[in-house]
């Protein structure tokens, strides 16, 4: 080192020179960055000149996404809601692990069946083969499976996916379309009709009455697992309105009082059955 302190002064000179040098900061809102043409940073849906989305909800993007990150829903040309992606992705909020991570008491799992229910795989394969393995028969296959199990077990869907060589995400997406149950229902299923006629005849009030009676909202189950409340638009129509379906039987037209009575009756029947079973054993 020639002069002691020379390095320090060299550094001081550098900073002093840079005091007057042009600055490199981009003043963001005024000065927008020039993004590379190859930039893949943001997915954006483009609009046509009439202000409509150009996206046709064809799910091609979701299918080619290498990390399966795209989960999308929309309406097809008939106005049906269609969806692609993992079915229970938004369940995370009620997931016990999410509770545990948040430091809240975690509820025990309700539906063990979801992951290890034994299913009759040859039978499912037989159903698939019976329809010739055609993709358009997926709904019919689902209907058959749901008739047998009361819902669409995940493993059955996997068998369907394997047998039909359809990507599982598509199978799940189709299963989530509506009308199919992805979890086993608990207890008695009360389905309140939500078709136009029933709602006109007071279906909404009926739903409110039942919600108040059971203490749950639509698409929920009571804590003791005795009842599940649902809505669907195919229960009754016209003369029956407003109608509900209790398990397999359709009742209507109903008042709130009558609906409550039905619920009470089922409860009593359950209690009787339990007592009888206890005596028998």
């Amino acid at each position: 080192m020639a002069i002691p302190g020379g390095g320090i002064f060299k550094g001081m000179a550098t900073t002093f020179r840079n005091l007057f040098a042009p600055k490199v900061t981009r003043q963001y809102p005024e000065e927008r960055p020039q993004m590379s043409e190859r930039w893949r940073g943001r997915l954006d849906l483009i609009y046509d000149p009439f202000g409509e989305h150009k996206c046709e909800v064809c799910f091609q993007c979701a299918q080619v996404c290498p990390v399966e990150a795209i989960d999308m829903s929309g309406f097809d040309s008939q106005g049906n809601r269609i969806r692609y992606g993992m079915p229970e992705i938004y369940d995370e909020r009620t997931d016990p692990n999410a509770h545990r991570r948040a430091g809240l008491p975690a509820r025990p799992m309700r539906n063990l069946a979801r992951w290890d229910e034994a299913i009759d795989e040859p039978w499912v394969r037989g159903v698939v083969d019976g329809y010739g393995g055609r993709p358009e028969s997926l709904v019919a296959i689902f209907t058959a499976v749901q008739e047998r199990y009361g819902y669409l077990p995940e493993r059955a869907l996997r068998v369907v996916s394997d047998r039909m060589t359809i990507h599982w995400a598509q199978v799940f997406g189709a299963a989530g379309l509506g009308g199919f149950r992805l979890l086993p229902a608990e207890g008695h299923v009360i389905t309140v009709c939500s078709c136009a006629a029933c709602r006109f005849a007071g279906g909404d009030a009926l739903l409110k009455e039942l919600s108040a009676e059971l203490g749950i909202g639509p698409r929920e189950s009571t804590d003791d697992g005795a009842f599940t409340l649902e809505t669907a638009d195919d229960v009754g129509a016209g003369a029956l309105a407003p109608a509900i379906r209790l398990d397999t039987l359709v009742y209507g037209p109903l008042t709130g009082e009558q609906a409550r009575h039905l619920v009470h009756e089922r409860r009593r029947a359950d209690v009787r059955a339990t007592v009888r079973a206890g005596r028998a054993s």
Partner: protein
Amino acid sequence: MDDLRRPGSPASRLGRRRALTAPAVAGALVRALTDRFPELAGTLWTDEDTVEVQIDGARSVEVLSRLRDDPELHFWYLADAAAADYGVGEHFEVVYHLYSDLHPAWLRVRARVDRSSPHLPSITGLWEGAMFHEREMFDMMGIIFDGNRDLRRIYMSPDYRSFPQRRDFLLPDDAADSSAAGVNPLERPETWDLSRFSEEVAHSIDPILPLGTSAMAPGPEAAEIEADETDADKSRPR
């Protein structure tokens, strides 16, 4: 590597990899290895820039120290040490990759470890730097290195008691009831086809280069393996 020779495969369209410099010189290495370890000659296998031997886990320190100290081999640098789990009923494998400036090929030493009592002598006496490798293997696979004086968890917390990278690792906490259940065959052992990892399949991949009869002899069960593989392919979820 069969399809290398099959006409019309992508590889043949593009030509083979560059002039395979390494094994040409690796011949010396293979000779040196067969001279010193005649009992391992049957397990020799070469890749374009890798020479591989298989040993029993109990011998790892002995073999590795001879590989390091022999002046003609002189594998002075431990490039990697990793473990692989071949599934329930199979075995663990601890894989050491070594480098020597005398031989332009990586030397891969595959040490076989029994799955029911996964004990292996520690090589921290040879290379201090194997410490973190061994701690990671212990943490992730539960392989116990005798003689390692700091065999602790390294990634997971000290009170954790499972071995996450084992093939039979179940995560009831997460898999069974999480939203991801059914999304990925991540922790679902019943979806794994373990038959593919049988001893024969893992060991009978025939070599690219003619190194010696012992090294390139194709397994007698080749036909079975072929059948096995296609089955396995079919049974994989698509």
